[in-house]
C-alpha cells in the first residue's frame, strides 16, 4: 500500500510538469468555417420528391378531376365517375383475396420487421448516449 502511495505521489509530482499541446494557429477559424458550412447545408431546402415528379402528380390529379367532371356531365346520372372510384376498393379486396400466404412466409417477413424496429430503438438510444 505504501508503495502505491509513493508511486502516486511520484506521478502526481511528475504530472505537475505536464503542459497542454496547442493545435495549429488557424484551428479555431477552420472549425468555425466548417460549422458554418454544416449549418448552411442543414438549412438548405431539399424536397423529398424532385420537381418533375411533383409536376407529374399534379397533372395526373388535374387530369382525373377534369375527366370526372366531364364524365359526370355527359353520362347517365347513375354512372358517375365518383361511383366508379368506389369500385377500386372492391377490386383491391378481391385482388388481394386471391393471395394465400403460408404461415412460415408471414413469420419470415414479420420477425425481421420486428427485429429491425427493435434494433432501430436500441441504436437510437446508443447514439444518443454517446453524444449526450
Amino acid at each position, binding site marked *: 500500500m*505504501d*508503495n*502505491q502511495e*509513493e*508511486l*502516486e*505521489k*511520484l*506521478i*502526481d*509530482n*511528475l*504530472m*505537475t*510538469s*505536464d*503542459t*497542454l*499541446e*496547442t*493545435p*495549429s494557429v488557424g*484551428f*479555431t*477559424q*477552420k*472549425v*468555425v468555417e*466548417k*460549422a*458554418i458550412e*454544416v*449549418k448552411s447545408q442543414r438549412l438548405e431546402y431539399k424536397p423529398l420528391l424532385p420537381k418533375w415528379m411533383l409536376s407529374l402528380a399534379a397533372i395526373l390529379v388535374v387530369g382525373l378531376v377534369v375527366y370526372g367532371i366531364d364524365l359526370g356531365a355527359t353520362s347517365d346520372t347513375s354512372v358517375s365517375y365518383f361511383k366508379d372510384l368506389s369500385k377500386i376498393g372492391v377490386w383491391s379486396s378481391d385482388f388481394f383475396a386471391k393471395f394465400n400466404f403460408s404461415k412460415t412466409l408471414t413469420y419470415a417477413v414479420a420477425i425481421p420487421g420486428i427485429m429491425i424496429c427493435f434494433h432501430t430503438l436500441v441504436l437510437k438510444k446508443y447514439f*444518443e448516449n*454517446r*453524444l*449526450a
Partner: protein
Amino acid sequence: MEQNLNQPNVQLILNGDSQEFSKLVDNYKNLVFTVALRMLKNTEEAEEVAQDTFIKVFKSIKSFKGDSKFSTWIYRITYNTCLDRLKKVKKAQMISSFDEMSGMEVADLRTVLDVIEEEEKSKLLKKCMELLSPNDSALLSFFYFEEKNLKELSKILNLSENTVKVRLFRARERLGCILKERLNPETIRNYG
C-alpha cells in the same frame, strides 16, 4: 494546469452566433487536441479528430441536457471520437506487460525527478506519454488536467468510479515503468 473555462452560452450558439462558438472552441481546443494527440500519436490525425469533435459538438449541442458539466460532455465526445478513429484505422492498443515497481525503485525515480529541471521533466513526460497506450494516456491527461475529479472522469469514460480508480492505478504503474526504462540507469544510480 487547468484551463480557464467560461461556460459558453449554448442558446447563443443555437441561434447561430459564430463568435460564441469560436469562444467555445478556444476554451476547450487545447485539452481536446492534447488528448487526441496522446491517443492517436499523430499530429495531423489529432488535429483532424479535434476538428471532428467540435463539429459533433456543434451538431448535437441541442441534445446537451445539462445533467453533467459542459466540459465533461465535450471530453466524452472527444474520447469517443478518438476511439472511433482508432477502430477505423485499426491501430493496435499498445498494452505492454510491465513489472511492478519496488519501493526502492520508486524512491530512486523520485530523487532523480527532484533534481531534473522543469523543462527537461516536461520533455521526458511527453516522451513517456507517447509510449503509453491510448487509453492510459487519455485517462492520465483527463485526470490531471481536469481537477483530479474521479466522478467526472467516470462520466467521460463511461465507467464506474471504482474501475476508473483501478485503471488510474495501473496507468500510473505503466508510466512509472516507462519512466524507469527511459531514464538512463546510470543517471538513476548517480542521483539515487
